[in-house]
């Protein structure tokens, strides 16, 4: 247990620090409500405008609506960019302290990223459930609401799959961190990640709604595991063997990225040039 203490402490300190930013959470929440509402209305226009195509669609309108609210509520899990602390460390040179600590640098950064992510996630997802899951049905707009999971087993599988989604997202954030350390600049990779993440996680449009020919490829690619797979498990679109296949994919990508990241970080760190004074 003692061996784990520094990592638990790193997670906790980051989590508590991020929880201080209440105004940022509220502002983010407002933005997410806006985008969620626009997405829902656009989806509804397409679904209701073409009943035949809607009937043939792989997910129903109500599932797509729930997907949209999930995507907005879970926005903090998306691996948009590297950990700003690592980027700042690279810029100021304080990264050299991380080299001196008697702990594993990969594990330390990984748990810090996890703390950063979950602390932004908790208030936002709670507010989103309150607004889209509880307030909307109360004002008589239940058809546009965030529906509960399709069954108890779906809920349990979702809990597992969402945990894996966070683990996978942190592994991707770590790869971004390493690129930041290697290139000494966070800006380029962060800009590059935006379009990749917004499309391939399903944040902009549920992956199931893309043309049928690319759907298998979209399911297999790593970013699906950060949002699309848990979402589809949540509303019972992936069940039984397919659900486990999705979870298996999440585990596969997470393990692969962690192994890759550890190896790569070791190489980058061994010839790190420290900036700043």
């Amino acid at each position, binding site marked *: 247990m003692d061996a784990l203490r520094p990592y638990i402490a790193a997670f906790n300190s980051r989590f508590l620090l991020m929880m201080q930013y209440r105004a940022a959470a509220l502002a983010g929440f407002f933005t997410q409500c806006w985008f969620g509402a626009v997405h829902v209305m*656009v989806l509804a226009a397409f679904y209701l405008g073409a009943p035949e195509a809607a009937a043939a669609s792989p997910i129903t309108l109500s599932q797509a609506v729930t997907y949209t609210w999930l995507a907005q509520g879970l926005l903090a899990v998306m691996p948009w960019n590297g950990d700003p602390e690592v980027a700042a460390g690279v810029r100021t040179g304080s990264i050299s302290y991380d080299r001196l600590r008697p702990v594993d640098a990969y594990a330390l950064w990984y748990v810090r990223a996890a703390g950063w992510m979950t602390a932004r996630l908790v208030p936002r997802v709670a507010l989103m459930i309150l607004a889209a899951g509880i307030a909307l049905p109360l004002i008589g707009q239940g058809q546009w609401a965030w529906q509960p999971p399709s069954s108890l087993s779906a809920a349990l599988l979702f809990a597992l799959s969402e945990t894996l989604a966070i683990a996978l997202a942190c592994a991707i954030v770590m790869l971004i961190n390493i690129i930041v350390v290697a290139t000494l600049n966070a800006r380029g990779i962060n800009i590059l990640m935006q379009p990749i993440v917004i499309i391939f996680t399903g944040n902009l449009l549920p992956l199931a709604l893309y043309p049928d020919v690319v759907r298998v490829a979209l399911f297999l690619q790593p970013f699906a595991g950060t949002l699309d797979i848990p979402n589809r498990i949540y509303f019972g679109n992936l069940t039984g063997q397919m659900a486990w296949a999705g979870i298996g994919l999440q585990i596969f990508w997470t393990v692969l990225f962690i192994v890759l990241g550890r190896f790569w970080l070791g190489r980058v760190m061994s010839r790190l040039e420290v900036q700043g004074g």
Partner: protein
Amino acid sequence: MNALSLLGRYFGASMRSQMQYPASAMMLTLAQLASTAIEIVSIWALFDRFGAVKGWAFGEVMFFYALIGISFSFADFLTRGFDVFGSDFVRTGAFDRLLLRPRSAALQLVGHDFRISRFGRFFQASIILAIATGTLGFVWTPQAILLALWTIAGGVAFFGALFVLQAVMAFWTVESLEAVNALTYGGVYAGQFPISFYARWFRTFLIFIVPLACVSYFPVLAILGRSDPLGAPDWFLPLAPAAGFLFLALAFLAWRFGVSKYTSTGS
């Protein structure tokens, strides 16, 4: 030196500084192009699966998408100083220095920075406009071109007003408010679709409170030569972008009020 030539100086200085790193400026522009172009993929996927919606085909929606993108890129290019006003001017107290100079603060903020990379979105939107023109077989009469320029001008004023309002709020909140992103970036997203896609309360909001529809939906109908299926009179459609300028005037009134209430945070 008059205001215009002063702005010219600011502009020249900003360009020269960014051109010290031409490769970086180029890459940032390309990155903007790629990251803003990606949204059209999801719109295309929706049309591919569901077909035309409420009488709107993909080609027409590309028209909305392109014009709102062009408007936003210019506004974003011109108002960078207002965008970073909270974090770079109010919090640091740098705004005090602006107030000491014998020029208006608004002018200096416009001149603060012009980001070349914003042209990435402009190029991207222009390409989409060209594709939309081809898809629809649209003929650009001189009248249509004038109307499009007028629409873009109204759109620049509209988004410029949002950035100014964001700066006004920073007088009280000190930080730049992320929530305004819902209206700026969210506005670009919402303006990509005809407002007949939206629920009534949202349409009302986009026409009368934050007049986004007046700088996208109504004038684009006029450019395409269609009447409004929601029933706005035909004579109103080409006049609608004026609402963008009205909105900007109101934003500057709020700005003056904010400046008069400003107390420095600097030391």
